[in-house]
């Protein structure tokens, strides 16, 4: 499937990030089409997490700009207004490597809280929707439990449901399975594959090459803060342009 004619949902234009003189992102540009699934791969320290976090401004880029649906997200990307930040984050969901569920709330409260505080749904509607999402990710039986009473795989699926509860237009995943055992990780990957098939726009930082190959529409290989290789999974994995890409892929496969 190609997305050349699809609507461009997110446009990142020369995103730069410098940590105390250490240039981590070297001006990354990319278009994300509605419904597209992008796998972001690359060696450790390449800047994958940093780039992902720049897309919802958990990390404020030191240069470059973002547009959603053709509209710039910020009037001044270096001085984000509060309202602009909130609106960006409500349109973009994020799933973390370490789940980051709220331990003081029950599973269902984890999912309803932001819906209610952000004025998205009434309490009753938020609860209905939360149960529906929990069913979708297969953890409905844990609705009343505490996060600490759930397995890692369940927690990550709950975290996905929590992010979905904001009706995001784009979902960001930062190595959602690397804190999990492989079998448990597969449950999470299954949920993500279902989302992808349902047409969710997703950017996934991952070391799961099989997942990237099967599910992603496009693979981006990040190295030392810039995009080294980009294309369909088949092209990047079978016919990489760069020697560096082959070496990286070889190293991952050898693991």
């Amino acid at each position, binding site marked *: 499937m190609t997305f050349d004619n699809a609507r461009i949902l997110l446009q990142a234009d020369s995103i730069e990030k410098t940590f105390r003189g250490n240039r981590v992102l070297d001006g990354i540009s990319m278009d994300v089409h509605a419904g597209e699934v992008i796998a972001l791969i690359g060696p450790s320290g390449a800047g994958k997490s940093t780039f992902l976090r720049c897309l919802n401004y958990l990390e404020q880029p030191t240069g470059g700009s973002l547009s959603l649906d053709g509209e710039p997200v910020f009037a001044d990307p270096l001085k984000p207004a*509060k309202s602009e930040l909130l609106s960006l984050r409500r349109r973009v969901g994020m799933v*973390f490597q*370490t789940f*980051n569920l*709220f331990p003081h709330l029950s599973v269902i409260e984890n999912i309803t809280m932001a819906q209610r*505080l*952000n004025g998205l749904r009434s309490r009753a509607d938020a609860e209905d929707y939360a149960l529906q999402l929990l069913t979708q990710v297969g953890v409905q039986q844990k609705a009343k439990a505490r996060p600490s009473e759930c397995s890692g795989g369940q927690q990550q699926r709950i975290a996905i449901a929590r992010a979905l509860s904001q009706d995001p237009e784009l979902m960001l995943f930062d190595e959602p399975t690397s804190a999990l055992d492989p079998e448990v990780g597969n449950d999470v990957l299954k949920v993500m594959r279902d989302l992808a098939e349902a047409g969710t726009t997703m950017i996934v930082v991952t070391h799961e090459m099989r997942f990237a190959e099967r599910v992603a529409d496009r693979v981006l290989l990040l190295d030392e803060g810039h995009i080294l290789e980009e294309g369909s999974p088949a092209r990047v994995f079978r016919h990489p342009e760069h020697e560096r890409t082959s070496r990286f892929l070889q190293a991952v496969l050898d693991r």
Partner: protein
Amino acid sequence: MNTEADISTLFQVIGTGLVVTIVMTVVSFCVGAVIAVPVALMRTSRTWLVRAPATAFIDVVRGIPTLVWLLIIFYGLGNIVSLDPLPAALIGLTLISSAYLAENFRAGIENVHTGQKEAAAALGLSSAHQFWRVIAPQAVNIAMPPSASYAVALLKDTAIAAIIGVTDIIFFAQQEVARGAPAVTAFLIAGGFYLIVSVPLSYFSRFVDHKIREKVVVV
């Protein structure tokens, strides 16, 4: 001299101070906790101008010994507003407990895992909601065990109020000794009364510590 009747009278007299000791502990802990909240919020502010006065308050209050505070308030301010011993002690102990508890609350706020704030921010919660709905409840959990054990320390600190004449446990023990009661017995009884309160309190604080450990993720 050391007859049973004498000892039971000693018990009764010294025991009358127990209420004052408990009142001082409870009042200065509770009022101190209320004052500690805004101080801790200021202390964790990102704005230097807000943070600096809170830091100074916490450091200066904790830097001066309890006894010196009580002497300053009772004798020092005595020329300006004359206070009875008990209100003077309550003011001093509240001041001190607010500074210690503010420091506990600050540590609680700062020790909530950074991922929690990020998750809240990523959901598009406003900064007020991020703090009050996600950070604060967990900070309270983290601050609870050290605050419970601070209550024990505060209980023992209230004894110092006897020096400015507050009629607590140790005041009566001292008074009975001055009237000729045997010092060893009198102060053993006084110590016993403190233990009656402090031992359960410190067991409670350990219990809280255990309970809380199951509930929070600490950095």
